[in-house]
């Protein structure tokens, strides 16, 4: 029996049109990925405010992944391009603050890529697990 095995906390933002549907497809195909991944549905990956990512880390998340439609396939034409640029800037700032680059990721998952979704999540969780708990941005006042 495994006791006290470290389980990271992962927040995944998925756009409604591609990645959330991709996650559904992973489910339809019964493709396993760790339960540590919790998905929040957003209309478009560009709806993800850097504030949300910071909040997640502040509240103790160990990794944040943002999934959107592939470039050129955005339901709203250009939203994922904004995501790509915003998050590149945010992640490099987080890296500077000590949130390792492996803890943050933007991934393009289409509605047909259930397998990719599961594989991405497995890989991401594995990487974050290897890094261990995130203590950098955690707000101790939030700890119960």
């Amino acid at each position, binding site marked *: 029996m495994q006791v006290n095995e470290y389980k990271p906390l992962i927040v995944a933002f998925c756009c409604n049109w591609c990645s959330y549907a991709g996650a559904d497809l992973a489910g*339809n195909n019964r493709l396993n990925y760790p339960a540590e991944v919790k998905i*929040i549905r957003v209309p478009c990956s560009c709806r993800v405010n850097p504030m949300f990512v910071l909040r997640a880390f502040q509240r103790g998340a160990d990794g944040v992944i943002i999934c959107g439609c592939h470039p050129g396939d955005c339901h709203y034409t250009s939203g994922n391009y904004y995501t790509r640029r915003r998050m590149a800037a945010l992640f490099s700032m987080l890296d500077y603050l000590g949130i390792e680059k492996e803890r943050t990721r933007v991934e393009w998952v289409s509605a047909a890529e259930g397998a990719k979704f599961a594989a991405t999540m497995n890989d991401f969780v594995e990487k974050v697990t290897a890094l261990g708990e995130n203590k950098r941005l955690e707000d101790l006042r939030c700890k119960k």
Partner: protein
Amino acid sequence: MQRVGVFVCWCGSNIAGTVDVEAVSEALKSEPGVVFSTNYQYMCSQAGQDMIKDAVKEHNLTGIVVCSCSPRMHEATFRKTAAAAGLNPYMVEIANIREQCSWVHKDMLTGTEKAIILGKAAIAKVNLNAPLTPGESPVTKRALVIGGGIAGIQTALDIADAGFPVDIVEKKPTIGGKMAQLDKTFPTLDCAACILTPKMVDVAQNEKIRIFSYSEVSEIKGFVGNFDVTIKKNARFVKEDVCTGCGACVEKCPMKKVPNEFNLGMDNRRAIYIPFAQAVPKVATIDPNACNMLKNGKCGLCARVCTAGAIDYTQKDEYIEEKYGAIVVATGFNPISMDKFDEFAYNQSKDVITSLEFERLTNAAGPTAGKLLRPSDGKHPHTIVFVQCVGSRCDACAEKGKEYCSKICCMYTAKHAMLTRDKYPDTEVYVFYIDVRTPGKNFDEFYRRAVEEYGVKYIKGMVGKVTPEGDVLKVQASDLIANKQLHIDADLVVLAAAIEPDKSARPLATMLTASMDTNDFFTEAHPKLRPVESPTAGVFLSGACQGPKDIPETVSQAGAAASKVIGLLAKDKLTGNPCVAHSNELMCNGCSSCERVCPYGAITYIDKEFRMPDRTTKIRRVASVNPAVCQGCGACTVTCPSGAMDLNGFANLQIMAEVDAICK
């Protein structure tokens, strides 16, 4: 505080097999706001839905959380249930504990644990939900088609056929566009005029269609269903409703040396002219840059010979305002200028021509009455070299040319080559190609026929230099298969010039707030699934304004655009998606950031009066979202530096609450 009801679905064993539904409904009972929590075998069944309705009444619920399958599956179902129970449908949140929980996890303990967290997140969100009502706007049942080529003609005919009035705005004196200039059409070789002119007549005779020829769109305001458009009708100095198109004025006009644009300047027209015999409307137009009467008040011959009294030298530009429910862009294409490609000596020899000029040279109504004669000396050419991909498929960094394939050139070049060999078997025809691209019905067969039956010499390679010398064109080219440099003495060189969107497209896109790519082609709302719609609601795309297209493709896209327009005009009212952005005017600083990122042009800035604390009023510039146009992507909400912009249904606080619930 909301009064939330939680309904955990078993989905048979789909959920209940991996998630302890009882434990979930029990655990969620103590969440803030939850006043009722239960579980049931099939929540989506009639019995399950009735259970929800009853609970709403019994416990006075103001919010509902269903822990079930994906919201993409049954969100709509449960919203209807809520509405039936008298609740606002947007007070429902779904926790996806099937696709994203029970189906992907095997262990009961982890499944249950995760389902509880997902449930908590949904409860945290629904606590912040507010009732939303979709906006409604009326639809003006009239469509505007901009551009009167085959794309615009077909779209207008199809819309009119469904019973809606359509206006066509065409900047030239006649509709017909590029197709009217063509000789034959591939791959069937039927004559362009024979199939186009009956359609032009149909347009003219259709009671539902109005043609604004020699006109341009000068202003567009409003949004889907409610566009206010100003059309500028240029003065043609001929009363359209009086002119009979008899042509007496044209015959008598003494200004005979005006380059004829319809024949691409290869012959001349008069200062008063009708572009071609089958023009629609068949009305004369005076070219103010050429007419002596208009320039210096001397002449007036046309007015004297016009028995109908249609000539009016004092006519002024006229502005017409009209309302439309939908706008179709059909502005078409033009061959690019050959100025930057003078290694082919287009500007140095009259006998180097573009393919469109070749069309006119072989057209029975063209400057040579259909005889293939060299523009320089009127002699029959015996050796013709066709050069493909002139200006197409160029590197983005190159200073000339276009990056894309112009798509139609391979086929029309094969057509030109074949027709030349058919009519003049004594003519040697060379085609220099990089690739021959013929992906269309009967296209490759057509090209093979040109090679195999008509003996057209296709050479894999490119022409490097054309040197006019005496009356020959010395063509230096490569033959990559033979690994040779060829030197051909040609009589005529025909360049398959790349095509580009019409220059009027860019300012039009600005007026429409429709997006364009870097090549000035209009962007479609979705490259695969919404190919004839612009991302801007109510704006549709027809023909080559969206990308290079041949006639069959243009016509099918025109029909598709028409059907989308009909679908829109058939509605009396448009119901919007209530999950749209809105701006907090007190926080907005008027920076325009949101306006710039909005792909739909849904955001405008208005000057609004605000009461200041000292009881004065102040005018401030603030963002205003048009809910009928906004599609709810949320790009603006993140861009807004002051946090004034938020999105209904996916508000900052709601998402933050979800994050908190998950991270607890």
